[in-house]
């Protein structure tokens, strides 16, 4: 009896702590949304904690209409993400298949090189890449935004290789006996059975490129190829104290990912723990 009471008290305490954690986690999102829905006049005259009264979408209309033109950053970001996603998945699948299922001289060495590049941090390559793209006349182009990423990622190749090695040989050889060539085997056999890991990689790629900042910061200039993160940073620096507008921008930058996350949350949570992606 007393043990179960103790258990119940402990559960209650655990709940309380977890709720505090939840409030601390969610409050900044709600506060920024609240501010985004306020008129600048209300923001200037009342405490920042007051709820929007009346609720107004004027910050958003200002953001998307008129000169801030937040439509373009959304479109550019979506394009970059889409192209990088397609390229990275396709080319990583090809490479991973070669590493997992084919025998060829240089395989171990090459794979080791691929793995070693995982240790190269983005801050280290940013300066040489800047110099290279500038020399090639590619600064501030769409190519500059996608090229470094589109040919596949060593990380994706690594994960896919592990997965492909687990595919039963029978499946592949059966397809071969049916006269499939390598690409057909990939498309008809390997890809379909690899859906889970491909879905995981899709999420990883979308999230990390949607959120990418440093590379767009140095390699683009001006509104044309401005990504969403960059546009948010610029808006903040141009309209410093104009927090209602700035919070509208952060809301726009955050909401699509949150929706994606909430829809696929089960899968995302699993993906994170499988892959530890960052």
């Amino acid at each position: 009896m007393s043990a179960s009471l103790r258990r119940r008290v402990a559960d209650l305490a655990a709940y309380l702590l977890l709720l505090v954690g939840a409030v601390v986690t969610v409050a900044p999102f709600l506060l920024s949304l609240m501010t985004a829905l306020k008129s600048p006049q209300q923001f200037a005259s009342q405490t920042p904690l007051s709820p929007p009264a009346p609720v107004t979408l004027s910050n958003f209309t200002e953001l998307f209409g008129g000169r801030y033109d937040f439509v373009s950053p959304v479109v550019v970001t979506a394009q970059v993400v889409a192209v990088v996603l397609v390229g990275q998945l396709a080319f990583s699948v090809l490479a991973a298949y070669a590493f997992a299922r084919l025998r060829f001289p240089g395989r171990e060495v090459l794979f080791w090189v691929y793995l070693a590049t995982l240790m190269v941090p983005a801050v280290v390559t940013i300066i040489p890449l800047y110099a290279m793209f500038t020399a090639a006349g590619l600064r501030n182009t769409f190519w500059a935004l996608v090229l470094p990423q589109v040919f596949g990622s060593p990380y994706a190749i690594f994960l896919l290789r592990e997965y492909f090695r687990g595919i039963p040989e029978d499946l592949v050889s059966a397809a071969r006996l049916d006269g499939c060539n390598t690409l057909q085997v990939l498309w008809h056999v390997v890809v379909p059975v690899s859906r889970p890991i491909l879905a995981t990689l899709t999420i990883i790629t979308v999230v990390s490129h949607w959120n990418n900042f440093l590379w767009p910061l140095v390699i683009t200039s001006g509104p044309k190829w401005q990504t969403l993160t960059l546009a948010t940073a610029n808006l903040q620096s141009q309209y410093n104290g104009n927090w209602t507008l700035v919070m509208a921008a952060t809301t726009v930058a955050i909401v699509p990912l949150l929706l994606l996350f909430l829809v696929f949350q089960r899968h995302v949570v699993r993906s994170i723990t499988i892959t530890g992606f960052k």
Partner: protein
Amino acid sequence: MVADTAQSSAARSSTASSDAAARRRRRETGTAYALLAPSLFGITTFLVLPILVVVWLSLNRWDLISPVKFAGLDNFRQVLSDGQFARSLLITAVFVVLVIPLQTGLGLFAATLLTRGLPGSSVLRVLYVLPWICAPLVLGVVWRWILSPTDGALNALIGRRIEWLADPALALPSVAAVTIWTQVGYVTLFFVAGLTSIPTHLLEAARIDGANAWQTFWRIKLPLLRPTTFFVLVTGVISSFQVFDSIYALTPQGGPQGVTDVVAGRIYYQAFQSRQIGQAAVMALLLFVLLVVITVVQQRWFSRRTTYDLST
């Protein structure tokens, strides 16, 4: 690469079929390299070549406008002697020390609460990951408002004027706190996965032996969580050493008195604001070496300490 298929052993039986096998091998090699071609190009051009370029840049003086001038080891001498880079390394190390233990501890604690089997745990677990899915830069902008001294939400809440990001004593802890807020949910996920994968018969056995919850945690769960803990620590340390986006948004230009001038930011400002490309390249190289060393050391430690045999 030992030939192990039925075909290849059969191939040995005659020279004719050994020719065929050789041809097949050649074809397989050709296919493999064709499949590898795009990624090989990408990795060579955008990951390997830049390392060579950064080495070359480190030996030159360049302000992006005037022509490149060979400088020998001048950049190295400058970077190592003027103390700014050493200071940035120290700041980054302090940042790592502020962030990693706290976020790991909080994550572990949250995970133990979440694995008590309470209803709603999975919803909370998802909630905690929210910040982590968002762009660090954008969250940095949000927190810059929350922490701003006059119009910010936090000061309004506590009713006191505290200059979270402008006070040199508070700026780095504040930035670290935001980072922890962003990452705790992510760390929690791993610990939840680790805790749920502990075989129940072990916990059951401990309970029968009369161990209380506290003892079970320290004697059974924590040791078994070691692989998870190490994974979380390794990735955490590596990524904290490269922190840039959130600090760029929260405390631009290295913050008050440069107290948040972390290494990645220093490299960025040195290259793209002061336009001292050579010196920035030296810093990038040194950071790279440092990260490789950290990775290797942690890997060693990791492989030495993490094998458990649960079969007995």
